[in-house]
C-alpha cells in the first residue's frame, strides 16, 4: 500500500466542495471512483478532468476517490492538486484559465469602504461573493483557515483568483504571518492580486520582506501590475509603530486595524463602545493620514445586528476611518450607506464647490460663500464629498447645470 492523502470537505452541510482521497499504488493503473450529486450532468467531465490532471503530474498508478457535493471544476482541480502535492513534490501547476474579466488593476486611491473576508478554504462562499458588490474581497489564507488546511487553501485561493469573477471588487489576499506568509505569495502573486493584506504588522521590515518577494515573483512572470499593500495593526507594538509602517513603502495604500488581537494583546476585551481601542484607532487614523494613505477600521462581528453595525460605522467615520472590514455580505450595504456622505453633507459641499468653481471662472483667488471666506482645506473636503457622492450615484454627474438654476 502506498501513501494516502486527503483534501477538501465532505459531509452534511458541505456544498460546492469535494473530498479527495488519493492513494499512490505501484501497479494497476488509475482506479477512479466518483460519487457526485451532479453525476448525471458532470460525472463524465469530472472523470475526464481527473484523469488529465493525474496524467499531467505523471501519476500512472493510483486509487482516487472523489466525493463531490457540487464543486466547480476549478475547486475539484485545486483539491486534487493539493492531494497530489502532499505526496509528490512538483514544480508544475494545473491552472484553470485566467478569465479575461479578472485581469483588471485597481487605483491607489479607490474607495475601500468595505472589504469582505472569505475563508480561503470555503469555495461555496467565494462563488457568489462578488455579486454583493463589496469594494474588495479578501481571500483569507490566515485566521479563517484551520492550521491543517492551510496548504490546500493555497491551491483553492489560487484557482479562485484565476477562475472566479468577483465583478470588479478589488482582489485582495490576506497572507499568513512570517515565513508562511512569504511562501503564500508564490501561490497568489502571479494571478493578478490587487492588494495583499499583511497581518500582525509590527515593524516596517515586515513590509520589506513581502515587497522583495513580490518583486521577485513579478520579475519571474514578467508582470508590472501594481500590487498594493494593506498592513494590519493588531498589537500594542504595531500601534506604537503605526506611522513608520504606514510611510515605509510607496505601494502601501491603506492601514487597517484588527481589534480582536489588539485587545487580547492589551489584556482587555472588546466592547461595543470601544473605549479600550480609542487610542489605537486614533493612532491608526493619524498615522495613515500623516502618510497620505487610507485608515481602515476593524470588522463588526455580530452579523445579525445591523443597527449595531450602523452605529459602529458612524463612529468609525467620525473618528476619520475610510472603510471597514466585513464578514457577511449583508453588512456591505449598511457599511456603504453609512460611510456615504449624508444628504446634508452633500448639500453643503455643493454650495462650497459651486462657489469654488465660480471663483475660478472669475479668476478670484479667494472662495467666498456670501460674506464668509472658505478656507482651502474646507474646499478640498467639499470636493472629496462631491466626488464620493458622484461615485455612489447619490448625485447626478451634471449637478452643476441644474444647480445653476436654483
Amino acid at each position, binding site marked *: 500500500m502506498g501513501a494516502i492523502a486527503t483534501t477538501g470537505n465532505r459531509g452534511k452541510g458541505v456544498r460546492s466542495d469535494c473530498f479527495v482521497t488519493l492513494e499512490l499504488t505501484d501497479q494497476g493503473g488509475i482506479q477512479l471512483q466518483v460519487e457526485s450529486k*451532479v453525476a*448525471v*450532468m458532470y460525472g*463524465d*467531465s469530472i472523470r475526464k478532468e481527473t484523469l488529465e490532471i493525474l496524467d499531467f503530474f505523471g501519476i500512472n498508478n493510483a486509487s482516487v476517490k472523489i466525493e463531490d*457535493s*457540487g464543486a466547480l471544476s476549478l475547486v475539484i482541480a485545486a483539491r486534487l492538486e493539493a492531494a497530489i502535492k502532499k505526496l509528490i513534490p512538483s514544480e508544475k501547476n494545473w491552472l484553470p484559465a485566467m478569465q479575461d474579466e479578472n485581469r483588471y488593476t485597481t487605483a491607489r486611491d479607490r474607495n475601500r469602504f468595505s472589504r469582505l473576508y472569505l475563508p480561503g478554504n470555503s469555495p461555496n462562499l467565494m462563488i*457568489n461573493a462578488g*455579486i454583493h458588490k463589496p469594494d474588495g474581497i479578501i481571500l483569507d489564507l490566515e485566521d479563517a483557515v484551520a492550521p491543517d488546511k492551510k496548504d490546500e487553501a493555497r491551491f483553492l485561493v489560487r484557482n479562485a483568483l484565476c477562475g472566479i469573477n468577483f465583478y470588479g471588487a478589488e482582489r485582495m489576499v490576506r497572507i499568513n504571518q512570517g515565513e508562511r506568509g512569504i511562501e503564500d505569495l508564490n501561490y497568489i502573486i502571479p494571478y493578478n492580486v490587487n492588494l495583499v493584506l499583511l497581518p500582525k504588522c509590527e515593524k516596517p521590515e515586515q513590509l520589506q520582506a513581502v515587497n522583495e518577494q513580490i518583486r521577485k515573483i513579478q520579475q519571474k512572470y514578467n508582470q508590472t501590475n501594481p500590487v498594493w499593500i494593506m498592513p494590519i495593526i493588531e498589537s500594542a507594538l504595531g500601534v506604537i509603530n503605526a506611522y513608520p509602517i504606514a510611510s515605509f513603502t510607496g505601494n502601501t495604500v491603506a492601514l487597517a486595524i484588527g481589534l480582536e488581537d489588539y485587545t487580547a494583546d492589551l489584556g482587555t476585551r472588546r466592547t461595543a463602545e470601544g473605549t479600550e481601542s480609542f487610542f489605537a484607532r486614533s493612532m491608526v487614523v493619524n498615522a495613515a493620514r500623516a502618510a497620505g494613505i487610507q485608515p481602515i477600521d476593524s470588522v463588526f462581528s455580530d452579523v445579525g445586528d445591523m443597527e449595531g453595525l450602523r452605529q459602529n460605522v458612524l463612529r468609525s467615520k467620525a473618528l476619520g476611518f475610510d472603510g471597514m472590514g466585513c464578514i457577511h455580505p449583508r453588512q456591505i450595504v449598511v457599511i456603504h450607506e453609512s460611510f456615504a456622505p449624508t444628504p446634508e453633507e452633500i448639500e453643503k459641499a455643493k454650495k462650497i464647490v459651486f462657489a469654488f468653481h465660480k471663483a475660478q471662472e472669475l479668476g478670484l483667488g479667494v472662495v467666498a460663500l456670501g460674506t464668509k471666506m472658505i478656507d482651502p482645506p474646507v474646499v478640498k473636503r467639499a470636493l472629496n464629498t462631491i466626488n464620493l457622492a458622484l461615485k455612489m450615484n447619490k448625485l447626478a454627474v451634471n449637478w452643476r447645470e441644474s444647480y445653476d438654476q436654483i
Partner: protein
Amino acid sequence: MIKSDKLVTNAAGRIVPTIINGKPAVPYMGVGKYKPEGFRAAPKIASCADFPEDGNKVIANLKEALLKAGLRDGITISTHHHFRNGDLVATQIFDIAHELGIKDLMWYPSASFPCHEPMTKYLEDGTINRIEGSMNGALGRFTSEGKMKGLGVLRSHGGRYQAVQDGEVHIDIAVIAAPTADQFGDANGVNGPAACGPLGFALADSQYADKVIVVTDNLVPFPCIPWQINGNYVDYVVVMDQIGIPEKIVSGTTEITKSPDRLLLAEWSAKFCDEAGLIYDGFSFQAGAGGTALSIGIYFSEILRERKWKARFARGGSNKYLVKMLEEGLVEYILDGQTFDLDGVRSMRDNPHHTWTSPFTSYNYHGKGNFSSLVDIVILGATEVDVNFNANVVTHSDGYLLHGIGGWQNTLFGKCVILPIPLFRDRMPVIRDEVTTICGPGELIDVIVTERGIAINPLRTDLIEKMKNSSLPIRTIQELKDEGEKICGVPAKPKFTDEVVAVVKWVDGTVLDSIRRVVS
C-alpha cells in the same frame, strides 16, 4: 389497460401520449386554445330518505366506513393535503385496502408529502395501480424508475378541480380529514388539535364523489361553525384519536431567508416591481411560502408603509408575515388557499378579512373566470427555466420527478409573473436551452430574476420599455444562460428510455408534457 399509447407532438413541441391509462387524452393546443363542449360531470342524486333523520352519520371506524362506501378493486380514492407532512389518514386507507386484498386502486391526492412514502409498498404489491395528483420525493423517484404500474398524471390544484368537474376523473370514495366536524358531516379546518386552516382542496371531492367520508379527531355537536365542508355532501363520519401531527401540519419553519444570495434576489425582485410600476395603492400580489418570497413581502411592506399605500388583497399561502401585513393595515384582504402556521390559522378563524378559498374560486380554468388572473404580481419558483422562458417545477436536471405542480400553473395567469431563482444551485445551472419538463409555457412567464441579472420576456415590451433606464442589471436570458454555463460548465443531459412514466397536464386538461423513465 394500456398505460400510454399513440404519441403525437403537441403545440409545445413535446411528444405526448393521446391514450392515458386506457382513456383518450387531448394533446396541449396552446394557452386558451382548447375549449371543450358539453356538460360537466354530475354526482348521483341522493335522497334524505337514505340518511338518518337525526343527522348522525357516525360509523364505528374507517374500515367499516370504507366497506360501506363500496371499497373494491379498481376504484379511485381521493385525499387532500391540508395536513401536509403531518397527515395520518391517507396511508391508513391503503393499509386497510391492503389488508382486505383490494387491488388496482387509483390514489387521487391533491398533493403528496414525504410522510406518504409508505405508499411505495402498495404501489409495489399492486394495491395501488397509480397516483394521479403529485408524486413527491420517494414517490417521484419510484415513478421515474418506471416502477409504477399505471401512468402517473400530474395536475395543478386548478387542474384537479377541472378534471373532476369535467368528468375526466371520477372519484368513487373521497376521504376528507377534517380538524373539526359534527355528526352530520359539516366540517372545518380552523378549530381542533389538527387545525390546518382551510379545507378548499377537498371541495371538489365533496361535491362530485360517489361517497364522501369525513374523518375527524374533534367531533362537536351540530352545527360545526364555520362549515367549510357542508354535511349535505357527506355520507359517513368517522372519529379517530388523531388525524394529524400538529407540528408537521403547521411547521412554522417557513422563515425569512438568511442567505445573502436569496435576500439579494428578494431585494431585486421587489425593486423591479417598484420600478416597473407594478406596486400601487390597491395592487395585489401572490405571496409564496419560500424564504425568498417571504422576504419580498418584507420589502413590499416597507414600500407600502413609506407611501401610506395598501394592497387590496394578497393571495396566500399565508403565514405570520402576511398576517402581520393584514393586521398592520398594509393588506386589506387575504384570499387564502392554505395556511402555513398557527398565526395563519388564527387569523383565518378570527379575521373576516382573511378568507378561505378553494381551487374553484381561485384556479379552475373551466369556470367563468377565476381570480388568479386578477393578481398583479405573482412570485414563483422553478427547478429550471429555458431560453424561451418555459419553466419546470416537477423534475430536476438529472431527470428525476421530485415535485408536484401545486397551484403553480394556475397562478401563471397573474398580470406579471416573476421567478426569482439562483442562476445555479451548487453546480446545477438553472437556465437551460430546453427545460427537462415543461410545466409552464414561456408566454406566461414574464421576468426571471437571478443574482447575476434580470431577464424580461421579449413579449413584455411594456416592461422592457419601463426598465430601460433602470439601475438593475437587465440582461437577456441567453446572456444569463451563458454566464451560468461559463461558471458551471455545460451540463450533460439526463438519459431516458422511450417509456413514458407520467404526464403533465395543463390547466385545461390537455397533455403538456411527458416524463420518461430515467436510465439509472
